[in-house]
């Protein structure tokens, strides 16, 4: 890859330089020939001495002594003629005006030729002057250049390829390290992170966001693990009861009344299992991103009122009162909303002291509508508050009443909030605990 790119660039550069050079050399050659021609032309046009022919011949002899330059003179008058084959040269140059390259028969060399007609003067008849220079030196330069170009190019390409491979290797080493680190991350090795100090600046940001993504996943994974353990634990108690009491019942002869008693007790345990399973399924649905589908726009205070009515007798028994404050309309799936408010109220009823007043509030802002239930209670510590919505979390472990409450109530509130595009919140201030949820303003389809 690198070598191909390097070779291509070098070939391109080589070609361009070769073109430039050969053009420049050609121009130089033309100038040289033109100079030679002009030199003698001037002498022929302006010379008035009687022995001009001898002086011209002398000059030509002097100039051409190095063998690189040659002249031909053609005239009707044989005295003025100069050079072998002068007539043929005159004919050739006449047929092709401008600079002419010609392979000379006599020598192996090529000559660049330029010709001019010189009008008759008092001292000579009309003449055709042809100047030529040997192209060999210039061709030699080009040939040398060409000979050297290929190996130099190849060496350069190889060098560049090697260098860039090396640079890439060194430059990408952190990436290889990242890759190796990432390879090691797995369910059994969740603490593994990308090593940050060895990363260059460009990769550090990527590394740290990747690491924090791993942290978040790890937290969720840990939660899921403990959640699985919790589920198993929750299911184990009713299962143990079922197995135990059925075994005891079957170990002796029992009469119908006793057997019925066992079956009834079993049924209660099974109901408990069923409730846990269907609540778990409900939570799983919310987790999968299911949204409340049949939403209707309705008054929240009215729906809360219905739920409070459901609790009337319980409230009466517990000597509690519920006050509904505020109202707003929102698009809700009523049965889900009732379920969430039921769980909040039940939570409040469980924790409020006798004779207390429970406050159910509806508050609307531009972004969302908030529904909350407040009740006087023991203060809840700041780190416990967000955990209230975790499944199977019980703030007061000692007071857990597993018959009435399997610890999914507020998790279900959270699920219902998210099904409505909302969130849950909880605070505990001045002996008042407030737990609630928001509903997204946009009414989903």
């Amino acid at each position: 890859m690198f070598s191909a790119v390097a070779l291509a660039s070098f070939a391109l550069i080589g070609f361009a330089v070769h073109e430039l050079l050969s053009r420049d050399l050609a121009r130089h050659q033309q100038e040289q020939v033109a100079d030679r021609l002009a030199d003698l032309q001037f002498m022929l046009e302006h010379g008035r001495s009687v022995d001009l022919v001898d002086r011209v011949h002398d000059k030509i002899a002097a100039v051409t002594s190095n063998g690189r330059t040659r002249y031909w003179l053609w005239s009707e008058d044989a005295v003025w003629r100069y050079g072998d084959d002068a007539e043929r040269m005159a004919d050739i140059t006449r047929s092709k005006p401008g600079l002419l390259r010609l392979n000379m028969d006599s020598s192996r060399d090529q000559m660049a030729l330029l010709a001019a007609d010189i009008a008759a003067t008092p001292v000579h008849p009309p003449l055709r002057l042809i100047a030529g220079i040997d192209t060999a030196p210039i061709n030699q330069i080009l040939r040398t250049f060409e000979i050297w170009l290929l190996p130099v190019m190849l060496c350069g390409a190889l060098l560049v390829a090697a260098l860039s491979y090396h640079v890439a290797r060194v430059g990408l080493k952190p990436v290889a390290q990242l890759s190796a680190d990432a390879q090691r991350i797995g369910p059994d090795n969740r603490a593994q992170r990308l090593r940050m100090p060895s990363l260059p600046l460009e990769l550090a940001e990527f590394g740290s966001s990747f690491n924090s993504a791993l942290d978040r996943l790890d937290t969720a994974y840990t939660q899921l693990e403990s959640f699985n353990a919790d589920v198993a634990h929750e299911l184990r108690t009713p299962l143990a009861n079922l197995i135990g009491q059925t075994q005891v019942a079957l170990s002796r002869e029992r009469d119908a009344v006793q057997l019925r008693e066992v079956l009834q007790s079993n049924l209660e345990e099974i109901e408990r299992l069923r409730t846990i399973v269907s609540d778990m399924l409900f939570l799983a649905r919310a987790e999968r991103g299911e949204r409340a589908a049949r939403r209707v726009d309705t008054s929240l205070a009215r729906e809360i009122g219905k739920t409070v009515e459901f609790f009337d007798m319980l409230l009466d028994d517990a000597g509690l009162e519920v006050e509904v404050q505020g109202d707003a309309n929102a698009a809700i799936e009523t049965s889900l909303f009732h379920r969430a408010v039921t769980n909040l109220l039940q939570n409040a009823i469980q924790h409020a002291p006798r004779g207390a007043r429970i406050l159910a509030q509806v508050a609307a802002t531009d972004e969302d509508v908030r529904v909350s239930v407040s009740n006087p209670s023991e203060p809840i510590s700041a780190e416990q508050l967000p955990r209230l919505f975790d499944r199977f979390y019980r703030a007061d472990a000692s007071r857990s009443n597993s018959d009435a409450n399997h610890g999914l109530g507020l998790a279900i509130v959270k699920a219902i909030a998210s099904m409505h595009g909302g969130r849950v919140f909880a605070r505990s201030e001045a002996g008042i605990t407030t737990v609630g949820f928001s509903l997204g303003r946009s009414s989903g389809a």
Partner: protein
Amino acid sequence: MKVLIVEDERKTADYLQRGLTEQGCAVDVAYDGIDGQHLAVHHDHDVIVLDAMLPGLNGFELLRSLRAVKNTPVIMLTARDGVEDRVRGLRDGADDYLVKPFSFVELFARLQALTRRGRLQEATLLRVGGLSVDLIARRAVRDGQRLDLTAKEFALLALLARRQGEILSKTTIAELVWDMHFDSNTNVVEVAIKRLRAKIDAPFATPLLHTIRGMGYVLEERSAAA
């Protein structure tokens, strides 16, 4: 009541058959979709209990082919909790659905509701033993003695009286009396029953409102032996 059960899970089909037969129903059972379709189309039933996942022909397909010829009420049983299945069942012409695991009491109540649907107007004065419930005057009297009930207590009593002899689960009661359509883990219904019992049974010699442990409540006159 003539019931057809189409359910491939043997254990489920068997207990449903036994339970419904004991409740006085005539029960046909099919263990796959093909047999089920044949029975459903060629015999007359008051109601069909149809499992959604069946070998041969699944519940939805069976329902569609049945609806092409008949309007027998159908209650679908879906194992998956997905809304998808429920919506699909109702769209294809199911009259009701239950999500597994469901309680037998619940199923029986729904079956009765489905077959009751479309019947002539119900009586407005209901009697259970010495108790009479006047649905129009909203008055309850036992042994000549007027019972002082709150509105919700009366609604609860009216429901139990209308369905006398039938076990009503807590979920059904919460649904029909308070319009709460979900399994709540509250003991609201228990408290309400306790209060109602204090008014209609406590002052009298024989109780009419009975608790069926683990299942629900029933209002009926029982002989002393029970």
